[in-house]
């Protein structure tokens, strides 16, 4: 079911660079795991609703306001940027 092409396609979707060795291993592991999960085919679910939430909460909202310590937190978050220019997050050009 899982061939190398499928592994490469999923890796591209997941934005994961994999070595050839890793591809082979993941192909083998995913095949074994997917074989195991076909167990679920035994269960009749045509009338069953998919599971959504455990706590029966619905549309939890809050006021869109700024926390008092946000400037300090912002500074700490900026300090984590791998590449920064004058408090701006620097990324490679997209085009």
């Amino acid at each position, binding site marked *: 079911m899982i061939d190398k092409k499928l592994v490469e396609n999923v890796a591209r979707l997941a934005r994961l660079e994999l070595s050839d060795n890793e591809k082979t291993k993941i192909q083998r592991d*995913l095949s074994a795991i997917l074989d195991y999960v076909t167990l679920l085919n035994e269960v009749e679910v045509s009338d069953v609703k998919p599971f959504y939430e455990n*706590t029966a909460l619905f549309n939890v909202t809050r006021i869109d306001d700024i926390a008092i310590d946000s400037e300090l937190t912002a500074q700490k978050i900026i300090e984590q940027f791998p590449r920064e220019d004058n408090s701006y997050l620097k990324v490679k050009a997209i085009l």
Partner: protein
Amino acid sequence: MELHQFSIKQIHQHLLQKDFSAHELTEHYLGIIKKEESKIGAFLLVSDNLALEQADVIDEKINQGQEISWLAGAPCAIKDAILVEGQKCTAGSRILENYLAPYDATAVAKLKKQGAIILGKTNLDEFAMGSSTEHSAFQITRNPHDLARVPGGTSGGSASAVAANECVFALGSDTGGSIRQPASFCGVVGLKPTYGAVSRYGLIAHASSLDQIGPLAKTVEDCQIIFDAIKGKDEHDATSVEAENSSVNVDLKNVKIGIPKEYFGEGLEKETRSIIEGVIKKAEKAGAKIQEISLPHSKYALACYYLVSTSEASANLARFDGIKYGMSCEANDLAEVYLKSRGHGFGSEVKRRIMLGTFALSSGYYDAFYAKAQKVRTMIKQDFDKAFEQVDFIFTPVSPFPAFKIGEKIDDPLKMYLSDILTVPISLAGVPALSLPVGQDGHLPVGLQIISRPFNEKGIFQISQQLEKIL
């Protein structure tokens, strides 16, 4: 009695009587850490200075005659997937090796407010994915009962730190058994609260519909004090709720305990079975009504879990992109930054799960895998709903076997996943469960899993404390 043998309440009493200071107690624990860590490897970070500063604040309060909370001065450890402001938080991953937490997780903020002393951060499987703590990118943690064996996982650092007397208690997190299974392997008490009982704010997300923070400690009483301190609704976690605390006291004498036959089948080791059956007999002798029940969809839980949790994980871990924080590899264009940073930053188990989850959510496979698993999850939840119409508690083993050898399962992911077979159904249903040490297979601890209705943690604590006395 040695300082590290005191419970949280005893520590509180002794601090008030000035038998010892919070500073002395903290130094005692730091001394044990210094002595034991080369063997155990539970900690990724020990923050001596910060801990002693926190202790001095408590001592000052006591000297001034101010009131202090139960947890004031109690030294603890925090799983390294939970943020402590200003400290590194790695989630056991290279991709976050140098990440500094910009704020406190709500559970940590609540502990700090009560005056608990944070000694450091404990080891885990990378992004809390594993069952043995061997998937940490940084180090192996050993089981204090047998150094050749794993402590369980993913909160293996927290469990072994408690078991090795390196702290009074620890916080862990549980997605499919990550508090209960290491608690069982290390012979300590561990609680996975009801989904929503404790805020997940500041817990690095693995699978958001399953993750819960909970306590690991030496006694049920300690666990309850910690749980009471960290639980409750939090505006930063929309799924957290303020649970009603039932005022009804439960007594082993008049409770109904369900024994699900599916949990005592193939794969359960003989000695583990006989220990658990022994406890059930003792509970019956104490007056509990024992009833065989069925949770018919149990055999599908593991397959369901590994589709649901990996799907959620693949979405949650998309944030580690080499752009905003964490490891970032040099590259020629933006796409290559993503590919290289994630390719180099994540370990093998995390990659495997991201791949499985991405596959289960991808076009053409979604209905057959993710959607199907979510429907099976509904049926697993209904099994528990029906069971709790008949019984008050469910008793099962936590793990089909005691702690296994380091390296024994590391090369076979499916074999490793099977370690979680008795804990994942509870996570899928979102109900609370506690791992209680009830015996030993040779020198290896065995835990009983006590499960109850949503938000009946108090009932679980009461039953567990009564069991502690008769074992």
